[in-house]
């Protein structure tokens, strides 16, 4: 258990040294009873399955989002997620993994030593009991879904070309650096920031970028005047179900081993998610008199988001609180959005931005060293300092994501163009961007 997120606690370089030490000197870090941990088939099986589960989350997200848009944009919405699986899979093995996790001294990037996965050691110190390829491909799936999350903010109005170029740049200049800083041996990791499976790296980075994009792009044509109800809620529920299923790989897989820590992450993930779904429904009951299916699904996703950074550091009770509170925060954020009138179409900021922020801070509140000795205690266990570390990471992630998104937006908008024309938007992206229709007579 102690090895799983070692890098997070000790910084990548220390961890690398320690790992090297295993084989060269035979020294053992505190808490380890054995020399260099051998490759474990059980851990490898778990990490490969987890990688497959996380891969499935992106189509899950595609359906979750696609069900919410109007019929004329169903394919374009699916396509945004689907093509990102392809695009980032290639980006990651060519340069992304090297930038995020490769060795190097720069602040933002790991370096270019591992381009095309060359020169990689057989095992990563961040996952010492599995082949390096397993850890690399597991991380690839995180790199894929993160830009896909943003799709919710610009749904129904982004040009396909603009989307592709923007996403590639965003993955390289926003995701890879933040992953490096928190997980890959960078500053926030060394600082002791706790982010078990991506509250800041995944959900805040995408959530705050989504907010910036929603504001920069402006509202959808007809927003506020037309009805824009979800065109197919069975698709939304299918997506939410695949997300819940896949998220076990995301969170419990982040233990990088099939051990007690993974089990803890699995249980806290499920509990917070359940609690958040119940809370969202309860809030709706009070607010509107009726609990909705979309609300249950939204609450579940909010719960999954919030527990993501915390799942390997908090206990059951922590997960109940984190789940209960996140729905209150996200639901409120969405109502505020409706008041303010900006168009974060499918609430990427409202759910991932707000939920990710809450999760990252909540980790600083409920974390327990007794759950994860490689972690730290949080406020409730008498360590308020951890909350400050979390706050720093949260602040940096928000500011960096927004700033870079603004830059990239203008860059892409001036070159290939970001938003489609009025007629294309009216026609729908399926026809205008892809020359297809979702459903035929």
């Amino acid at each position: 258990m102690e090895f799983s997120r070692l890098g997070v606690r000790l910084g990548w370089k220390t961890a690398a040294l320690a790992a090297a030490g295993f084989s060269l000197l035979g020294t053992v870090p505190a808490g380890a009873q054995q020399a260099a941990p051998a490759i474990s088939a059980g851990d490898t099986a778990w990490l490969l399955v987890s990688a497959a589960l996380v891969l499935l989350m992106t189509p899950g997200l595609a359906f979750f989002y696609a069900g919410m848009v109007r019929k004329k944009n169903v394919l374009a919405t699916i396509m945004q997620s689907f093509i990102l699986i392809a695009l980032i899979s290639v980006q990651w093995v060519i340069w992304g993994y090297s930038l995020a996790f490769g060795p190097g001294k720069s602040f933002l990037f790991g370096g270019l030593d591992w381009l095309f996965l060359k020169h990689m050691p057989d095992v990563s110190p961040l996952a010492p009991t599995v082949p390096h390829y397993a850890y690399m491909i597991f991380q690839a799936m995180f790199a894929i879904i993160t830009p896909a999350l943003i799709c919710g903010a610009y749904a129904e109005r982004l040009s396909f070309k603009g989307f592709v170029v923007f996403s590639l740049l965003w993955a390289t200049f926003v995701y890879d650096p933040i992953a490096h800083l928190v997980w890959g041996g960078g500053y926030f990791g060394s600082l002791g920031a706790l982010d078990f499976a991506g509250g800041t790296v995944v959900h805040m980075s995408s959530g705050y970028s989504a907010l910036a994009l929603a504001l920069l792009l402006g509202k959808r044509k007809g927003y506020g005047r037309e009805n824009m109800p979800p065109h197919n809620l069975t698709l939304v529920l299918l997506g939410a179900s695949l997300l819940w299923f896949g998220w076990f790989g995301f969170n419990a897989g982040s233990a990088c081993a099939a051990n007690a820590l993974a089990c803890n992450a699995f249980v806290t993930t499920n509990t917070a998610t359940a609690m958040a779904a119940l809370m969202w429904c309860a809030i709706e009951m009070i607010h509107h008199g009726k609990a909705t299916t979309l609300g249950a699904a939204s609450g579940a996703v909010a719960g999954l988001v919030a527990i993501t950074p915390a799942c390997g550091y908090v206990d059951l009770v922590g997960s109940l609180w984190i789940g209960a509170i996140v729905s209150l925060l996200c639901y409120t954020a969405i109502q505020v959005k409706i008041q303010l009138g900006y168009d974060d179409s499918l609430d990427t900021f409202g759910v991932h931005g707000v939920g990710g922020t809450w999760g990252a801070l909540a980790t600083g509140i409920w974390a327990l060293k007794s759950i994860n000795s490689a972690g730290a205690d949080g406020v409730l266990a008498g360590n308020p300092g951890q909350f400050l570390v979390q706050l720093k990471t949260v602040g940096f992630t928000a500011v960096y994501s927004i700033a870079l998104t603004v830059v990239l937006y203008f860059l892409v908008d001036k070159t290939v163009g970001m938003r489609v024309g009025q007629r294309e938007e009216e026609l729908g992206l399926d026809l205008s961007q892809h020359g297809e229709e979702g459903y035929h007579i």
Partner: protein
Amino acid sequence: MMKKIEAIIRPSALRAVLDGLKAVGYPGVTVAEVQGHGKQKGITESYRGQSVEGLLPKLVVTAVVGDKQVKKVVNIIVKTARTGEIGDGKIFVSPVSDAIRIRTGEKGEKAV
């Protein structure tokens, strides 16, 4: 001459209406899914707190019949589709100037 009878009914009444029509010898019907709004207001739906006024699902049953059969057909529909509650729907009767059976090219009343 012929008339087109368009009955906007509740989906749950379809079977009864069709059976009723068939029983008296009018098997030729066309059914379409529509949504509507009348005395029976649509219901307010809510998606993540955003309200949407929904229409209610209805079916339109269309039958073209000779002028003389209109009354009989309308009566059957009224009888089979009525629940007495708001939302039972409407029947509209309108003139048809010609009918052609595509298979044979037959025209007029014998084509319906």
